[in-house]
């Protein structure tokens, strides 16, 4: 493979503690190395910012509910289609882009790894076909466990070993990466027309509470020693006053320590925390509780979070939280799609317009930024838009602009129709913190990589790591005159390398790379009971046979990267 040397750039690398010093980054055989030969191709990065490739910890970019959005929102592609051009195949869509456009857009912004945040196990084949068709970026998918009948039945009796054996089996057959939980118990309750709005609401028929599900899954996750922790979307998302449910959920992790060989320190990752930090009793007295949530997270080192920033766009909401989407369509009266996934989960899809003229949307925008600004440890708080729920991932450069510039935030606050509401219901107006480039590298690279257990592979520029490198046309030595320059620089990279291959030059795709699918293979002790239960469920309930369930072989996972975990020696 080719050798490269990226010369004289301002390097920001939290893994090595480099804070903008002028340094060279050398690439050989797909890895970062100490030095390269004199024949290496020189990339001049003088006056530019150099970071590792960014890591997306939570986005909905592949699978049946994303595709449901694409199918029932042809208007999302209106005027956004791009024809075949150079290395690029045709693409389209704004909030729910086609797979090809998804890969290109991430790469152009310097993202090289992305996590699909909710894979319905029954449809893992569909998820992997879309991942396969998303070029350049490495991807992994989190199967959802929080409303799964096996999990509900095992955890009702606190059978951690059986739950762990089932998780190991499901990760293997679905080629999954981590344990995702969405509205634990609530989506199953939705199949009965109900919901679980607190951690103590019992799930109908199964007679288990969300608290028992969450705690049990954390224990099973740590029993196995998976690279990522439990990744949770708690109960009661998006309702005024929901922050109390969020705190109750976070407290379930109290006293539990991470047990793994990947350097991960947290046992719970709270995702899109913006949607879970609401105070008030209705939309009239709706207010931010970002301080309450971040205070708790700042004090408890076994938790990581991502923001879920509202970007003030027209978008498409989609979640395995079926009852929430029904609630949302009742609020905005736009079209609603609902999907039930037998024995496992469900989902809903509703278009949404975050209008700067609506006070609630403006307050949501402020809460997302407050969470990032109030977080004391950027290694534990990551930037997301919960794509496409709070906004499309293509808006990350704008979110970075708002975080890096009080001037940009003030300009947006002044542009709101209900500026007074933003100032009275949130604390954003009084915050003067400006996130530094080093902190951006922590929040988009080193932090998420560590949380995912990938800190040895990506998110940094240490020799030995994968050569995922982004070069931005942004000179940190010069004062920022216009905050829009930040957005512009982060929108289109000067150069991007993925595993040592130059994939983007001057904002254009120049190579489709060698995209990999990451998955976790856990070995556990033989567990005949769980194997018998799986057989029985397929015979009795599933509408397909077990032989048609597994995402197997070259068609679904053509270029796997397997993270091996051995849990055969674990003592309970």
């Amino acid at each position, binding site marked *: 493979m080719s050798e490269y040397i990226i010369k004289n750039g301002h390097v920001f690398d939290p893994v090595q503690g480099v804070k903008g010093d002028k340094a060279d980054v050398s690439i050989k055989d797909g890895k970062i190395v100490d030095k390269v030969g004199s024949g290496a191709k020189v990339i001049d990065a003088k006056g530019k910012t150099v970071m590792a490739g960014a890591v997306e910890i939570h986005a909905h970019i592949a699978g049946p509910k994303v595709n449901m959005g694409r199918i*029932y*929102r*042809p*208007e*999302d592609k*209106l005027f956004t289609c791009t024809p075949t051009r150079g290395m690029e195949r045709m693409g389209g869509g704004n909030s729910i882009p086609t797979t090809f456009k998804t890969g290109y857009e991430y790469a152009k912004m310097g993202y090289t790894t992305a996590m699909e945040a909710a894979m319905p196990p029954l449809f893992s084949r569909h998820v992997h076909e879309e991942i396969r068709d998303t070029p350049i970026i490495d991807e992994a998918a989190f199967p959802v466990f929080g409303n799964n009948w096996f999990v509900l039945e095992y955890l009702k009796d606190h059978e951690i070993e059986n739950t762990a054996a089932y998780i190991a089996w499901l990760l293997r057959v679905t080629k999954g990466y981590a344990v995702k939980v969405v509205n634990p118990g609530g989506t199953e309750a939705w199949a009965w027309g109900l919901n679980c709005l607190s951690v103590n609401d019992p799930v109908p028929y199964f007679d288990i509470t969300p608290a028992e599900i969450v705690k049990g899954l954390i224990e099973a996750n740590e029993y196995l020693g998976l690279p990522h922790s439990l990744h949770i979307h708690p109960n009661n998302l998006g309702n005024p006053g929901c922050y109390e449910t969020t705190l109750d959920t976070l407290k379930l992790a109290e006293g539990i320590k991470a047990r793994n060989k990947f350097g991960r320190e947290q046992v719970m990752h709270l995702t899109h925390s913006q949607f879970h930090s609401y105070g008030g009793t209705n939309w009239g007295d709706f207010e931010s509780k970002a301080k309450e949530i971040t205070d708790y997270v700042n004090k408890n080192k076994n938790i990581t979070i991502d923001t879920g920033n509202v970007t003030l766009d027209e978008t498409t909401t989609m979640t395995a939280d079926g009852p929430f989407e029904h609630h949302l369509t009742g609020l905005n*009266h*736009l*079209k609603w799609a609902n999907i039930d996934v037998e024995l496992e989960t469900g989902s809903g899809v509703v278009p949404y317009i975050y209008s700067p003229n609506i006070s609630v949307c403006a307050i949501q925008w402020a809460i997302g930024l407050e969470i990032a600004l109030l977080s004391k440890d950027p290694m534990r708080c990551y930037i997301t838009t919960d794509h496409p729920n709070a906004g499309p991932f293509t808006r990350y450069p704008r979110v970075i602009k708002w975080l890096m510039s009080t001037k940009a935030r003030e300009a947006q606050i002044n542009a709101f129709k209900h500026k007074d509401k933003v100032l009275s219901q949130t604390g954003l107006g009084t915050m003067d913190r400006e996130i530094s480039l080093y902190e951006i590298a922590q929040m988009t690279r080193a932090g998420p990589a560590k949380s995912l257990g990938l800190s040895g592979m990506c998110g940094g520029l240490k020799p030995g790591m994968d050569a995922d490198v982004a070069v931005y046309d942004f000179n940190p030595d010069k004062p920022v005159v216009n905050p829009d320059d930040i957005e512009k620089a982060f929108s289109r990279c000067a150069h991007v390398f993925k595993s040592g291959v130059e994939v983007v030059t001057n904002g254009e795709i120049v190579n489709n790379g060698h995209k990999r699918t990451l998955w976790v293979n856990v070995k556990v002790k033989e567990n005949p009971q769980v194997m018998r239960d799986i057989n029985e469920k397929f015979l009795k309930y599933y509408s397909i046979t077990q032989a048609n369930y597994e995402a197997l072989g070259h068609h679904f996972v053509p270029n796997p990267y397997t993270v091996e975990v051995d849990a055969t020696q674990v003592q309970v």
Partner: protein
Amino acid sequence: METVTITMKNPPALYLEADNVSPDTFAGKTAAQIGDLSVHEGNTTSTLGKYFEISGNAGASAADTKIVIKGDVKKVKYLGFKMSAGEVAVEGSTDQYAGAWMTGGKMQVKGNVDAFAGIAMKGGELSIEGNAGNYLGAAYRGDWRGMSGGRILVKGDAGSDIGMYMTGGEMIINGNVDVHVCTHAEGGKVIIKGNAKTKVGGQMVDGTIFVFGTIDVMMPGFKPAGEVEMEVDGVKGKFAHYIGDTGERHKKKKGQVVYANLYKKI
């Protein structure tokens, strides 16, 4: 006002997508520059000049530009696409998306237009001397924002699904219309001087429809609300008033439920 005349000389074998034919794109350009604008025939992109003979230069702005389109443009789509000012006059009939997404100015078609004319229109005037096709002034596929302003006048008949998701503006059809009128509409006014078939105002929550002729089958969701004398587009008469669609969610204004209104001339 400057006039640019484009005359079809070399008709396309497939359908031609001419989304650059609008006063906004022509403004400030010479005949030669206009000839270089792109058009699409199937998957091939070529120039307007390949198909049309172009004479006359455009005005400095869209408002100063009039486009006269001569010859057979029955297989040309998107004439007057997104125009905001100025004039477009089509001397014959044209295909789909005539005056689509227009926000201002005037477009006149001497012949017929096919489907999706004036879709999601926000302003201006689109007049059709022949017949209009389906989805006149409707929303784009999947969208919930149809025609919201401006006027559409049709001398002949119109097809099905006209005014779907309409939220404002006015549409006058002198002839008859096919099924589905103002489905899901949340505003606007549609006057049908001829006859209508079925599903008139289905799932409509706000807005007004007038039918001077007959309605084959009334929607069951509309209920009678008396008779009124009134003048509609210069015609005085007695109308049976219906409100609906009662099967739908309706907004409240000052404590009163707002319904869509359907007036049928008696």
